[in-house]
Every structure is written in structure tokens, then in C-alpha cells.
């Protein structure tokens, strides 16, 4: 039984990473089509990573700089382990939403350490912006998370997915508002255009990644692919029922759930890309004010609305 569980976990994690890398190519294709361009082939993500990993010379600024490579990839895969993917509970019975929230911090902090160790002032400014962005989008996202937890009276994502079998969370009135807020927070998490402040290529030479090249950049590209899958799956699990359509344990159910999950995260990712193509880049204090003033207010309204519903 255990071996079968491990096999399923390993299979789903690798599939999730492949889907992530695929989405990078698909993402560039969608953005290109919006720009009325042809855009790269869909499998461009795989080629980029293959090229980076087969670079002949690689530079390193010390063991802390390499730590970034290890931490970022490990952290993001660990997060995917604790997220139910397509209805399959990988390890998500063992941990809950708070754990996922803090697991997402490991790659961010490891990445920040590596950028700091590279000694480039651009990298430090980029990391400052990334951490401020994290502080700002975390407030509304956390408020919506608490609203969900209070409503479903559980903090484990797997149970939230189970409770959404009959009715997706987004269909309940207060959670429509919460989902909108969480989607804007998702925009910040994925570092898409209005909020790609920390890796701004024009202002600070692509921020924290200024000194990353060759295999380090390849690992960070895999991390970026992982974040695409992790954050969109988190959103889908919390609000769109985690893509669970059929509940009997048959192979068909696995496939159906997987397909629905794939379509849902694709839709969420495309939505964030469309926002990406239609907005210029904010300044960091504008983004901070945007999240802490307007988003937090909306999130708090939905939280109170849910609280009133629950105690009545």
C-alpha cells in the first residue's frame, strides 16, 4: 500500500512540474498572440531549461549562492507535495493551509539568500521588492483563507476540497468576493505584469536573478514553473473544488479529475496572463497601498459576511 502511495505521489509531482514547464511556453504563446505575434513553440520551456542546464561554464558566488538553487527547487516541489492535485491527496492530509503558506516561503527566502550572496546591488533591491510584494499580497490572501477556514471549520486544504464536492466555494455569495480578491493576490504571487516589480528587467536588471546563469538559472526556471502550478492549484483547490468531478476510485475518475483540474488551472493562468498583457508595471508603494487598502478592505468585508453567516 505504501509503495503504491509513493508511486502516485512521485507520478503526480513530476506531472505537475511538467505541466508547469509546459505552461511557461503556453504563457509566452498567449502573450505573443495578444501582441499579434506568432510567439515561441509551446514546448519552449523545456528547450530553455535544457539549454541552461547544458551550459559549459557555470559561475558561483559561494555556498550560500548555491543554497538558492537547492532551496528554491526543493521548496516548490515540497509545496506541490502538500497540495491536493486533481482530487488526489498527495501528502495534503499531513499538513494544512498554514503549512502550505509557510512552505511557499522556503523558496522565496532561499532565492533571496542566493541573490543577497551574489553581492549585486540590483539583486538586493529586487529581493526587497519581492519581500514587500509578499507582505502586501499576503494580507488579503490570508483574510480570504481565514474566511474559508471559518466557513468550512477546517484548516486542511484536503478537507476543504472534500467539502466542496456538492457545491464549489465560489458559488457561495461571500466567496465570490473572496475569490476575486484571492485572484488579484494570485496576480501578485505569480509576479505577472502589474506586479512584476521585483524582476523588472528594465529597472533593476531582472532583480534577484541578475547574477544567476547556467544551471542556477535553469533551477530557477524550474522553480518558476513550479510556482505557476503551485499557486494556481492552491487557488483552484480553495475556490473551485480542486477539479474533483467523479468520486469513485476508478481510473476513469482519476483521469476525469485530472483533466478538469488541468483545464481549471489553465483558465486561471490565462486570466492572470490577460491581466498581465493589459497593465503596465506598478511602483512598489502603489502595489503595497493597492493591496493593503482596497484588497484588504474587500477581503475583510467578505470575512465579516462569512462570520455573520457562520454564527447565525
Amino acid at each position: 500500500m505504501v509503495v503504491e502511495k509513493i508511486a502516485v505521489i512521485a507520478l503526480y509531482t513530476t506531472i505537475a512540474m511538467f505541466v508547469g514547464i509546459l505552461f511557461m511556453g503556453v504563457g509566452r504563446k498567449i502573450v505573443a498572440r495578444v501582441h499579434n505575434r506568432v510567439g515561441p513553440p509551446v514546448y519552449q520551456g523545456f528547450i530553455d531549461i535544457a539549454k541552461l542546464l547544458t551550459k559549459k561554464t557555470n559561475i558561483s558566488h559561494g555556498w550560500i549562492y548555491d543554497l538558492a538553487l537547492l532551496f528554491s527547487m526543493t521548496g516548490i516541489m515540497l509545496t506541490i507535495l502538500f497540495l491536493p492535485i486533481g482530487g488526489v491527496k498527495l501528502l495534503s492530509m499531513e499538513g494544512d493551509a498554514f503549512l502550505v503558506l509557510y512552505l511557499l516561503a522556503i523558496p522565496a527566502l532561499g532565492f533571496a539568500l542566493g541573490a543577497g550572496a551574489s553581492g549585486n546591488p540590483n539583486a538586493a533591491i529586487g529581493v526587497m521588492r519581492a519581500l514587500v510584494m509578499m507582505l502586501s499580497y499576503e494580507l488579503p490572501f490570508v483574510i480570504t483563507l481565514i474566511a474559508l477556514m471559518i466557513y468550512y471549520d477546517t484548516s486542511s486544504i484536503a478537507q476543504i476540497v472534500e467539502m466542496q464536492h456538492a457545491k464549489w466555494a465560489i458559488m457561495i455569495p461571500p466567496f465570490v468576493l473572496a475569490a476575486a480578491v484571492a485572484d488579484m493576490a494570485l496576480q501578485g504571487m505569480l509576479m505577472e505584469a502589474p506586479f512584476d516589480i521585483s524582476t523588472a528587467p528594465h529597472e533593476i536588471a531582472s532583480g534577484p536573478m541578475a547574477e544567476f546563469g547556467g544551471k542556477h538559472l535553469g533551477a530557477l526556471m524550474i522553480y518558476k514553473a513550479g510556482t505557476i502550478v503551485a499557486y494556481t492549484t492552491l487557488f483552484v483547490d480553495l475556490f473551485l473544488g480542486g477539479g474533483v468531478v467523479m468520486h469513485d476510485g476508478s481510473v476513469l475518475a482519476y483521469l476525469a479529475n485530472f483533466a478538469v483540474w488541468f483545464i481549471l488551472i489553465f483558465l486561471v493562468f490565462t486570466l492572470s496572463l490577460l491581466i498581465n498583457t493589459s497593465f503596465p508595471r506598478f511602483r512598489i508603494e502603489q502595489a503595497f497601498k493597492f493591496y493593503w487598502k482596497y484588497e484588504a478592505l474587500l477581503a475583510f468585508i467578505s470575512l465579516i459576511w462569512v462570520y455573520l453567516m457562520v454564527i447565525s
Partner: protein
Amino acid sequence: MLELIFAVLLIAAFATLFIKSGRIAAIISLIASAMPLIAVVDWANDFGIKAFSFGVENSMDFPIAGITMHLSITSFAWFFAVMVFSLLPPIFLFSYSFFEKNNGFFPFMLFLITAVFGILLASDFLTFFFFWELMAASSFILVCISRDKKAIMSYLAFSVLSAVLILVGIALLYSQSGTLLFSDIVLNADKVTVSAIILMVAGFAVKSALMPLHAWAPFVYSKADEPFVAFLSGGLSKVGYYGMFFVLFALPGAKILHQYFNSGVATYLLAVIGAISAFIGTLLAFMEDDLRKLLAYSSIAQLGYIAVGFGIGSSLAMAGALFQAFNHAFFKSVLFLVAGAVAYRTGKWKISELGGVGYKMPFTFMAALFAIFALAAIPITSGFAAKWLLYEAAVSNKYIFITPIMLIAGVGAFLYSFRILYGVFLGENRHDDIKEAPLPMIAGMFLLVLPLIIFLIFPGYMLDMMHSALVDAGIGTISHTNYVIRTGMASYNTLAVVIGMMVVMIPAFLIYVLRKQKKVDFKDNFLAGEPYEFYGYISMHAANNFYKPIEDVIMPYLRKGAISFYTALYNAMGRVSDASRKIYTGLSQDYTIYIIIFFFIIVGWLIW
């Protein structure tokens, strides 16, 4: 057994008073500080099963001047003792090479230890207050060594305030329950009024730097010697929480408050104060430039979490609070020792002046890294389990105001933890000439980091340790095995996280190993093509006012702040004492006139 420990501590304290060289004094105090730790370990097996009672057999009566002091160990005092006394040997090991000559640090630290030992053992309020005053006095002298007027004044003012609050509380308790013995007070707890409890809690809150009463912390933490500050922020603040734990739970203060207000509003208020101090402490922390002030504000923030746990009061919250207290004791003392080691080598405390210290002091950097991961509650250290319990407690009780603030304070912790790591250790290599910290310092730091890792994998041991404490204090416990904590809402399996991480690290490790890499010197950095020498004279260390964008957004709201209130108070006190100087001119003629006038008033009053 207790007399032996007290004797050894006091003899060592008096001995080190006269020893000039720091080294010998450090060795003596190291041995002396190990004594209470041995006693604590010896009592360990008692508290697996022993029921709670205030007179366990290894108690002792301690007659001084006709008043008998009752000393006995209880289960929760034992837990706090483990936490506080296991800090000391590593701190003294650290200060072995930190102090060349004995500037009074060692004797008064030993007095402080005897005082803390006495507080934890006290079983009646008289001994409790006696040792509380001894602790306040010895820690005050240790602050005086720093010779910084503002730190001394603020510490004096606040420790006097807390002593007065506690004394009045004790007096009220005595008047209502007629006795000072803890066990008797617990028996007739119904006669205890609410005001005594509120006063006592406020008195203890001063010691653990909760928001309105925290003004002394930034000044004292940033001026006193690092080893003392490590014990002050790691250990002494926990003594404040011991007092609060005793008053609210052992002496069922919380129940009395509930009956009086017939709702949980009072303890909820304590939780709100804790959450606000966590939030504002974090905001103030990441805008600080002085490393020790930053650590001071972060200490206030982390202590706020414990107050939230005390405020909520459920078994989940209390387990989280005690676990957080344990973690905070260790990672905060490591951080202050790291600040001491860095200052020992570079002589600087400002983050903007430090930079690139980590390249030359790798072990200190590793210790700081572990402590920061514990502070930021990242799941690879035991810090996460504590905060997770607190979040679970807050959400299960549906506190919708406290939980978001606590979570944001948790995320805010990442900001100043990166500020410490980047500002001090990484970035531009500006300290090429320094050497690694001496061996005893590194040993001290790593000894303190060890428990953070042990309790990562097995939080269950920690929960067993506090099991008897929670049960005896009338709070239930939570179901847990060695590595899985199960609460009503969800479960947290540390082993799954650790093994998952090991397995998932393989692909990353493969990529790292399979491609050779060339170490590149710091100068070979991309600066738009300009060679580093060209920029030689401009600092490339981007750590100066690092979070300026948010500072401009947040600062207007924080402008008022508690400290400006206290500085106004401080100036007012200065003016009052100035005015009084006019009366006490010190000239004998004036005094004779006063006597005559006074005499006439008395006579007039008698006749009239």
C-alpha cells in the same frame, strides 16, 4: 538539595566579585550555572506522572529574619525552569571569550540566576516578591554597566512600575484570602477580586514587554552587553510569562475574570494586545538600522505571540504559547549572541555599516541562519510548530480580528530576517580583514541552536514536557504522537515534511553536482559593464534604509507611537525633579527655617 544549589550560586557570585580576569570568572559561573540545570534534569522524571500540588516533598523552608519562606517545585515552574536554565551554560561559554576582563557581568548574572531560581521555586508570595526584587536589582545593575543614561532611566522606571503593580496585587490578594501561601490562595480563590489579577498581569506584562509597556526594551536591548541581553530577552521575559501563567491559570484568574465580566472579554483583550504588539513590533523592526534595536523590536513581536496564546486560553493556544516561548528563548538568545560575535569582531552595530561579514564568519552565519529560520517559523525548524498551534487555536475559536494580524506579523518576520541576513552577512564584501569568532563563542551559539532542530522532527517530546504543566494548571492537552500533532481542524506531520524535503532535494542536488562550476570573486559582478574598481568609492551595499518605500507609507500612521508618549513622560519627570531642587537647596539655613515654619503649623493646628 535546594540549599546546596542556592549555596553554590551565592558563593560563586561573591567569588567572581573579586576576580579580575574574565576567563576564570566565566569558568566559575559556567560551573555554577550548570547546578540549577542538573537539579531541573533530576526533577524531570517526577513530572511525568506527579499530580499538581504545591508542596511536593523536595520543598524547603527558608527562615530569614523570623519569616519562613516556602520553596517548592511545581510542574509548570519546572517547564519554565528547563527553558530558562538551559540557556545559561551556552551564554557563559560564549562570554568566556567575549569579556577580556570581568566588568561585573559575571557576579550579577549569578545573582540574577539565584533570583530567577528563587522565583520559579517560590510557593508563597513573600518569597516570590523577595526574589522578584532581587532579580530587578541585579538586572538593573547589569544594565548600568552599559552606562547609557536613557537605557538605565527607562529600565529603572519600568521595573519600579512592575514591582509596585505586583506588590499592590499581592497586598490585595493577602487582604482577600488572608494568606500568602499559593496552595491556600488556590483553595479560597472565590474570594479573590478582579483588580488584584489585573494589577498582577499588568505588572508581569511590563517584564515581558507587551506593547503599551514595551518602551524600555529598545533602549535596554540596544545598549547593554550582548550576553546579558540574550538572557534578558530569552530568559527574563519568560519569567514574566511564568508569573502571568501562574496568576491566570494556576490561581484560576482567568475563571475569575470570566465570572466578573461574564464573558471572555478580559482575556480576549490580552490576546488583542498581544496581536497588536506582534504586528507593530514587526513593522518597527524592519525599519530599524541598528541591529540590536531591530532584534529588540522583533523580540517584542515574538513575545506578543505568547500573549495571544495566553489570551485565548484554550489547550491548543496554551500549548502553542509555551512552545513559542521555548523557541523564542533559544532563537532570540542565539541572535543576540550572533550580534555580539559580529560586534566583537567588527565593532559595529549599524546594519548599513556592516556587510559581507558572512564570507569571513561562516559558522556565525550558519548559527544566525538557523535562528532566523526558527524566527520566521519556516517548517524546517521547530519555530513553525509553535506558530501553527497558535494559528489553529485562533481560527478554531473564530477570532477574526486577531488571526489576520498574527499571520501578517508572521510574514512580516521574513522582511526583517532577510534584512539581518543580507545587511549583516551577505552583500558587498566590506570586511575582508576580520577572522571567524573564537571557538567558545561558536560552541555557545551552536549549543543553543541544537534544540531548535531536535524539536523540529519530534515536537511530540516538547508536548510531553509541557503535558504535566498543562494538566496541572487545569488546561487540557492536545493529542499528539512523537511527530504528528492532531488538532480538531487539521494535523501536522513533521516527519512527512522532513522526509518529503529529503526526497524532493534529490533532483536539485543532481543538477548542482552534475555541472562543474567556477568560484567567481566578488568583484566579477554585473554592473552594466563598469568594472568594480570604477565604483570603488561608492558603497554597493544596498542595505541602507532598505524598506524606504513602505516606510514612507507606514511611518505617518506610526508617528505618534508609544515611545514619543514615554519621552514626554520622561521629560516631565525631569522637570518635576528640577523643581524639587529649589526646595532641597542643601543649605542648612533653609532647613532650619523649614523646621521653624513646620513647628508653627503644628502648634497652630493644635491650638485651633
